């Protein structure tokens, strides 16, 4: 499962029993909150204290941000840290915290973990993900970015797209093709790319909202030391799947607070504008509310039923329904606004520094409401595409959860270079 030098990420750290490890983690959290009150401590110092106390990812090994506890303990730790006013690390460095960290730990060398995890957690170094390409969207495994081994380095050329935060990131998770003569899934390898190295060019990608929340990344003979490879050569797909499953689960997990997310945005609009109420709109809103709450409760239920087991394809249910619901909710908001739906807050020039919630839902990193309905409406249009199109997700549900047969494939077993692309 992991390379020879890797420490396992499952919590078996200290030899003590799970209860003791849990108690120890909670004590550590209380101690950090006492010694570094988050409301009066600079964010970086607070995060350093958390990392050094093993509270970054409690199931990681000691010294690498963890305590070797069970993954389920994290929720209780976060409750203490965030309850005292600490930040939500995921939102500070989403690709880093949720995806890069476990992948580096599980598939990289111990040295690499040592080098990367602390700066990642304390946000000295942000992360991005270089997966999608103009020619490889739903068919991610068909990607064409080429990595060739030259001596102890990999030389990488190609174009990536839909990269959030590429202009801010120091490191990227990169999936590249190392053997075009293998069938597509088998010729891929997973790397950590230094975004500040030569041959890496980031261009903002303007979207229909007028903003440039994503980037294109052009790689021209960019170089990666072999020590920054995650997993074996040709094993990139398997490594990436773990990562993606975590992403979908994060997007689709939803909130357990009733009336948060896009439906909360609609409810606030509804309550603030009684002059716009009609029976038809009221009927639509309550149906949307019911769907949102059903999705919320389903997320809660899956989380509880899942317990400490790794996220499965169930996460796709939340992603699928959340995306479609978001769109309908913001359509509803525009219908409520009536003539004002024709107005917009401004397309302006492309703003490279803009950062919004990945899900298109309202709420920045701190959860504060952003009630720009026109923009949220336009932004939601991507929800059924990003992080897996709804078509792909329905295939996943049908095939992985229900066991239905796959689509008839024309590319199975064919060397990648012989499969038509375009």
């Amino acid at each position: 499962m992991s390379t020879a030098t890797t420490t396992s990420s499952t919590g078996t750290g200290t030899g003590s029993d799970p209860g003791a490890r849990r108690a120890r983690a909670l004590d550590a959290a209380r101690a950090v909150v006492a010694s570094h009150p988050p409301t009066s401590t600079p964010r970086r110092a607070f995060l350093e204290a958390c990392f050094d106390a093993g509270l970054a990812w409690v199931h990681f090994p000691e010294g690498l941000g963890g305590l070797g506890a069970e993954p389920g303990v994290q929720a209780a730790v976060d409750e203490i840290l965030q309850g005292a006013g600490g930040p939500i690390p995921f939102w500070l460095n989403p690709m880093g915290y949720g995806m890069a960290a476990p992948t580096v730990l599980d598939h990289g060398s111990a040295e690499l973990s040592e080098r990367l995890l602390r700066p990642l957690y304390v946000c000295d170094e942000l992360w991005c993900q270089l997966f999608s390409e103009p020619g490889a969207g739903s068919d991610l495994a068909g990607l064409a970015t080429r990595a060739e081994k030259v001596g102890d380095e990999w030389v990488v050329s190609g174009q990536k797209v839909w990269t959030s935060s590429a202009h801010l990131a120091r490191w990227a998770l990169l999936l590249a093709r190392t053997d075009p003569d293998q069938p597509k899934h088998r010729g891929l390898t997973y790397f950590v790319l230094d975004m500040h190295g030569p041959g890496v060019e980031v261009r903002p990608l303007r979207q229909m909202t007028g903003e440039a929340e994503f980037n294109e990344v052009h790689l021209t003979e960019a170089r990666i030391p072999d020590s920054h490879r995650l997993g074996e050569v040709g094993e990139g797909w398997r490594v990436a799947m773990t990562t993606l499953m975590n992403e979908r689960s994060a997007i689709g997990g939803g909130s357990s607070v009733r009336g948060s997310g896009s439906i909360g945005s609609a409810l606030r609009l509804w309550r603030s504008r009684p002059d716009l109420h009609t029976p038809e709109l009221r009927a639509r809103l309550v149906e949307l509310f019911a769907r949102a709450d059903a999705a919320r409760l389903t997320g809660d239920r899956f989380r509880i039923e899942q317990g400490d087991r790794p996220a499965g394809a169930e996460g796709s249910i939340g992603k699928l329904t959340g995306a479609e619901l978001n769109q309908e909710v913001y359509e509803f908001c525009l219908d409520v606004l009536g003539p004002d739906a024709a107005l917009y807050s401004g397309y302006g020039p492309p703003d490279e520094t803009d950062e919004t919630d990945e899900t298109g839902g309202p709420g920045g990193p701190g959860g504060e409401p952003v009630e720009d309905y026109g923009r949220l409406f336009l932004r939601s249009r991507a929800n059924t595409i990003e992080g897996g199109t709804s078509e792909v997700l329905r295939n996943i549900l049908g095939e992985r959860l229900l066991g239905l047969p796959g689509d008839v494939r024309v590319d199975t077993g064919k060397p990648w270079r012989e499969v038509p692309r375009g």
Partner: protein
Amino acid sequence: MEFDLTDEQRSLRDLARSFATRTFDETAVRAQLDTEHGFDRDAWRALGTDLGVLGLTLPAALGGDSEPGAPGHVELALLAEELGRTLAGVPLLGTVALAGTALSHVGDDPGGLAAELVGGVVDGGTVLALVATDARGRWSPDTTDVTTDGGTDGGTDGGTDGGTEVRLTGTASHVLDAAAADTLLVLARTPDGPRLHVVRAGAEGLRTTPQTTLDQTRRLALVRFDATPATPIGTAGAAAVAAVAAARDVGALVLAAGAVGAGARLLETSVEHAKGRLQFGRPIGSFQGVKHRCADMLVAVEQSRSVTYHAAWTLDGATDDDPRTAVDLATVVTAAAFPALAKNTVQVHGGIGFTWEHPTHLYYKRAVGDAALLGGRAAAVERLAASVLDAAS
């Protein structure tokens, strides 16, 4: 913790599934279609005496198994889900959820009538019907068309004298299991407001006329009272209305849970068919047109299950939510999901799914029939809207 089933609850679910699967295979279910009352008294008795699962939500004080620390709605939902899977022919909804819950809320029971009736329910010996619809079949406890004799010209004996016989006159339509019931629990207007009354089957002036139902697995009847002797039970007025509303909530939970079980079964049937049915030389489930439909069915089942369990846990007091809101949410979601699941099952099956021989139509009719009971989805939507949209917040 919500959604975290205890081992006891899992065992109950397994027991219920095993019973339902064994007792209600398709042949047994179809056999009930042609019987007078549409359900199996022996199976009912077995649920009561052998399995002992009919008192889950009925108060221990009246002979049931429900205690303040263990109210039993999660257990009832699991039972109803498993019985719903097979369309098991048993009067759980009418006898336990509706009449049983109403009896649990009558309050003072000096004559021991409630305890006597609940006792009969718990051992599966008794079938009850709650009469709370008007003459047109609308679930409307406030405007029942049945009155006590004397009508509105006022009696002077107050409203709490359990045991004094009165006479009921009027009509109620669409009454679940009324023709089969040993005893009817009747909401009637009295000078002191609405009040529950106990009427024995065969009572003078009582006429029950079976109605032909779309869903042959649940029977409705028109009930006419003509100076029919009845025993008042519980207090009149708001308390009686609240008892009937509580009954409706538990009834709605049982409907929702039944929809979850039936919906899950429909999904299984559809997936099985989509895997095995070949057209154009390949399983039809390999076409996205079919596959994506099944995926949507999966979503519908899982969301139905979530809101239903949430309603059960909330009725048990284990969440911060308002119980009625949680139940209405469950109704709103499942009363849309269940018919959609049944429709999609027909479509996935093609022509065979439209035939009498295939079981799907039985589920489809159950879905449609259920959606028309207890005020229907529309009333739940309206209550939910009033609760979450109109309330200040």
